[in-house]
């Protein structure tokens, strides 16, 4: 950097620094406050240092059902991640050729991304309410014991909740796949085919290893978006709460730093996922630039 920097560089660097402070400052605050002693309050000054509030959190003191909600969110997040990667990859492959209705499918996915979540959430809730009313009506009409005695609702974390999350994660996944395949050099596939690879072999040993880092990116979006999702889940998860929903309820009732401890744990899990994913991607890229592509070795 021998060339001197203009004044605008320093002004903008300062502004960027302010923005980063604005972005991270509040989070740093609650992480600090969550490590207070048992006498700690909701704001500064810090009152001692301890893991008191994390122990309370683990024991569920003052934060009922929070462990259940955390497990619910992890389970749902894992399933959403897998489905987002698989479905987005398949859709990405489909969009490489032209097929009838492809514009409509793309625009529907984009609409699903930008239309207000409260509308999507309400729509899913209504859809399942109508399903429930019809199932119960059938149960009554034909006197089906199983329905009359035990059917409550089809709504749930893994039905309507899963669907609600996918309407949010899939558009991101599909758009990322679009970006990936727009930059993908199909000469690799042609080379594989010329060497006699079947389309399954081309897919599994050439295409997937090459785009594996990007697929990890899709997985990262899938998990973190689901892990934090609240607006679409709000009306659509049924009786079980996800962690963000539980947390939202707690904002009005909890008045101890235990809620900050919960915030620290949630953010910690997000950060762990982000750091692990980004490191793997960087590692793979570095290895590739050293050894050339490892495509064909079946490793990702």
């Amino acid at each position, binding site marked *: 950097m021998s060339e001197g920097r203009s004044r605008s560089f320093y002004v903008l660097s300062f502004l960027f620094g302010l923005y980063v402070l604005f972005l991270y400052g509040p989070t740093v605050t609650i992480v600090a406050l969550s490590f207070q002693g048992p006498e700690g309050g909701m704001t500064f000054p810090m009152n001692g240092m301890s893991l008191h509030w994390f122990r309370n959190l683990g024991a569920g003191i003052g934060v009922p059902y929070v462990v259940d909600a955390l497990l619910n969110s992890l389970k749902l997040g894992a399933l959403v991640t897998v489905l987002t990667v698989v479905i987005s990859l398949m859709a990405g492959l489909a969009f490489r050729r032209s097929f009838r209705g492809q514009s409509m499918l793309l625009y529907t996915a984009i609409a699903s991304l930008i239309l207000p979540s409260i*509308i999507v959430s309400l729509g899913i809730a209504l859809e399942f309410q109508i399903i429930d009313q019809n199932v119960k009506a059938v149960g009554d009409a034909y006197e089906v014991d199983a329905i009359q005695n035990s059917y409550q609702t089809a709504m749930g974390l893994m039905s309507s909740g899963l669907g609600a999350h996918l309407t949010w994660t899939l558009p991101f996944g599909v758009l990322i796949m679009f970006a990936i395949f727009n930059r993908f050099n199909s000469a690799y596939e042609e080379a594989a085919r010329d060497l006699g690879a079947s389309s399954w072999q081309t*897919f599994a040993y050439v295409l997937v290893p090459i785009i594996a880092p990007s697929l990890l990116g899709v997985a990262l979006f899938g998990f973190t978006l689901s892990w934090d999702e609240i607006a679409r889940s709000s009306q659509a998860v049924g009786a079980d709460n996800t962690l963000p929903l539980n947390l939202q309820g707690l*904002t009005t009732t909890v008045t101890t730093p235990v809620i900050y401890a919960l915030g620290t744990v949630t953010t910690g899990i997000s950060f762990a996922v982000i750091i692990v994913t980004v490191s793997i991607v960087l590692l793979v890229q570095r290895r590739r630039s050293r050894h050339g592509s490892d495509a064909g070795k079946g490793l990702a």
Partner: protein
Amino acid sequence: MPLPVKTDDKQAMTHHARWTSYWQAAPLAAVLLLFFVLPLLVTFIVSFWSYTGYSIEPGLIFDNYRDAFDRCIVALPDLCTTFRTYLSTLRFCLIVWLLTLVIGFTIAYYLTFEIRTMTVRLVLALVCTIPFWTSNVIRMISWVPLLGRNGLVNQLLVGAGIMDQPLDWLLYSNFSVLLAFVHLNTVFMIVPIANSMSRIDKALIEAARDAGATGWQILLYIIVPLSKTGIAIGSIFVITVVMGDFITIGIMGGQQIASAGKVIQTQIGALQFPIAAANAVVLLVVVLMIIATLIRFVDIRKEL
């Protein structure tokens, strides 16, 4: 996981290829149909239904819409509740849009034109996007210890003698709602604008400079016009998020500020599903009109 058909026979492959795209796209289409398109249709239909305390009843009534616009026309020029709510929501939209646009554009400009090495740019871009992957609710709660009546900001203001007593309007107010909106949504401006800017040929800027253009002229006549698509995409994101919001306004407004989304949430809470559906349809129409206006500036496919 279903995978491409295994076949070594070239002719069989072309025969299969015709259908390949369809079954590959099928899962996406199925999810969107079941959990997006059908729910929207159901919402539209239910907005004409009636309801009892515990169920919704098919019908074709317009009471729900009449409820939504209760005395809105006769009361003019006084604004009815619905109009006031929409006006307040639109005002939030406008202010948040302006703030995120200015901040987002500045950050994107810095990342694209002032940072010279790819690695630094990547790291700084990650720094900007990582919070997007963490919980919004937590990020809202994080303002409480700073902005509360006994929060850090008030402690500093009173301690420094700038204020005699703590400010009340820092938290659970229009101010904190705006702050949180900007805090959470500026990233939606940064990413698409930086994406547009990264495609601007640096030679254009050099040429302008050689021809004697000042920094502001370059910004105004070259960079802004060529970032138009990114600005439009970012604007669509920010405006639709704020238009439909009920979480941020709820938490940061202390559940006291109305918004178009919050009205729907309240009606769902009261099990008035058809009325909520009618309000959802109204909100949908408003949002679609806004998008239709903004989409003229973009060709989304070109951006990917």
